[in-house]
């Protein structure tokens, strides 16, 4: 990893002017001569650097500005302010030399020819990206094998399942061995098995090609498993940039204490140690989940063990989703 960032973003903004239509027929008629517009700050002055080989997760609610940022980094959208630099290029200039070194994969969009087998798109990309025959064959074989799609690349794309299509999309995007990969919701709509397959593949690709990857996903498992670093965006502004573990340290106030008892205990007994989140007893099984102050988790667990009939205890971090919700609620409270 070098000191020079591969991706550098300074004060990047994208504002859209959107028309606010009044409801009903009268609203439609009125809009013919008078329209009210509103400026939406989709991305609002964000800055960050990303170094070679990093996998960075972009986290944010719907409409936070994640995809808009990726689109500006890909040269699809013209920034309102700021000039991003990717691989030393200004993406907006859309130079061929730049475009041959990155790929943008959008889970909800496809670049495959719908009416033809995926292999036709692969050959088109070979020509477009000027991939030498040997490299094309080698990369294609490797990707096809990694994603286990030997049997489907000859089938018309419209006849493939979502998961199969996504695998083919990834192959089409990676045939030219991009150094920078922007993945926008790559696992959206896929079942858990397929999500895992794609995550493993992305990890393997990063390892093998040293690719720098920015990933947006609503599935926290994607971010947890793939990204050491996360950037949280809310209403177009960056509100956190650092290691995932730092988010947990900074925002997770509690730890989760899962307890199994040998005999019945009361809720009141448990409440003395923390917030009772779950409590269950059916005459044979007695379980409870407690939220305890993070810094005192070990001490509290020891107290519970000494005072209650505990047969099993585990201390866990809260789910990352809950922590992210905490981050957003804190940011909302600040406003």
């Amino acid at each position, binding site marked *: 990893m070098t000191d020079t960032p591969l991706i550098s973003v300074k004060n990047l903004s994208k504002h859209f002017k959107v028309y606010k239509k009044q409801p009903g027929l009268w609203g439609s008629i009125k809009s013919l001569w008078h329209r009210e517009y509103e400026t939406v700050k*989709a991305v609002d002055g964000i800055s960050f650097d990303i170094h070679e080989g990093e996998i960075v997760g972009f986290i944010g609610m719907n409409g936070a500005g*994640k995809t*808009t940022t990726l*689109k500006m980094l890909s040269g699809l959208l013209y920034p309102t302010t700021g000039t991003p630099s990717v691989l030393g290029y200004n993406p907006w200039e*859309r130079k061929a030399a730049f475009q*041959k070194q990155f790929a*943008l994969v959008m889970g909800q*969009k496809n670049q495959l020819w719908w009416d033809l087998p995926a292999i036709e798109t692969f050959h088109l990309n070979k020509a*477009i990206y000027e991939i030498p025959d040997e490299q094309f064959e080698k990369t294609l074989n490797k990707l096809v094998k990694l994603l286990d799609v030997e049997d489907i690349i000859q089938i018309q794309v419209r006849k493939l399942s979502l998961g199969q299509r996504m695998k083919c999309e990834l192959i089409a995007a990676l045939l030219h061995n991009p150094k920078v990969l922007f993945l*926008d919701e790559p696992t959206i709509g896929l079942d858990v098995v397929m999500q895992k397959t794609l995550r493993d593949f992305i990890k393997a690709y990063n390892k093998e090609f040293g690719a720098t990857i920015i990933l947006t996903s609503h599935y926290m498992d994607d971010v947890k498993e793939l990204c050491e670093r996360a950037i949280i965006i809310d209403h177009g502004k960056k509100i956190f940039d650092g290691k995932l573990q730092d988010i947990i340290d900074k925002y997770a106030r509690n730890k989760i204490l899962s307890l199994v008892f040998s005999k019945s205990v009361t809720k009141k007994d448990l409440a003395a140690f923390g917030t009772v989140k779950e409590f269950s007893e059916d005459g044979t099984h007695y379980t409870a989940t407690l939220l305890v102050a993070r810094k005192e988790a070990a001490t509290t667990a020891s107290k519970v063990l000494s005072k209650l009939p505990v047969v099993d205890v585990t201390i866990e971090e809260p789910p990352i989703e809950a922590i992210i919700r905490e981050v957003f609620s804190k940011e909302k409270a600040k406003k």
Partner: protein
Amino acid sequence: MRMMEYRTDFVFWLVVSLMWTGFNYFFISLIFGKSTNVYGWSYDELLIVLSLFTMIDALTWSVFYNNMIEYTNAVFNGELSKHLLRPVNTIFVLTTQKISYNNVPRFIIGLIVLVSTAIKLDVSVSLFDLLLVTLLFICGMVFIYSGWFILATLSLWVEKLQNINDIMPGFRQVYQVPRQVYTGITAFTFTFIFPIALITSLPGEVITGKNPPLSLILYFIGATTGMALLAKAFFAYSIRKYSSVGG
């Protein structure tokens, strides 16, 4: 290639395009049922212009129409993004993404009628004339394409512009007949301001030995070059307005 996947649709459009051609030649024969000369053009000479129109029109429908529809649709549904991401000239990709072959027979019919009529008229076309006709034919195509592309690019500026692709085909009737048909302000408009009347007229005049003014030929070549450059510049500027979809 995509089209061949749907054979019935391909055959249907093939039949429709051949019917268009048949009607065009039929109507011109109707006009000459009562006249031997229209604005200084004989029936056979007018067949030359109509054949040039048929060939240009066949190429227009084969190459431009589908691609312009795809282009404006791509702006509205965000599909333009995938073209902008690729390391090839975006305008080139937008122009060649969907080529339909169902108008190829029309082109061939136009070419056959053109050559056979020229033989019938016993016109002597030098190599220079042939090159000039080819150049003017290409200019005509480029002019139509550039004008259409500018109109289609307007879709980047507004929320929805569904019928923008109907404008340029609406002008087809103008270059279906020689420029001499037009008089007064109409002639000035279609010869100098928006010189589409020259598209088939100039090469037709070269073939039939009517010797169009050199200044007019140069003007048309210059206007076409200007139009092509304007289309390129307008796209480069307008693409800043592209908002993609979602995100």
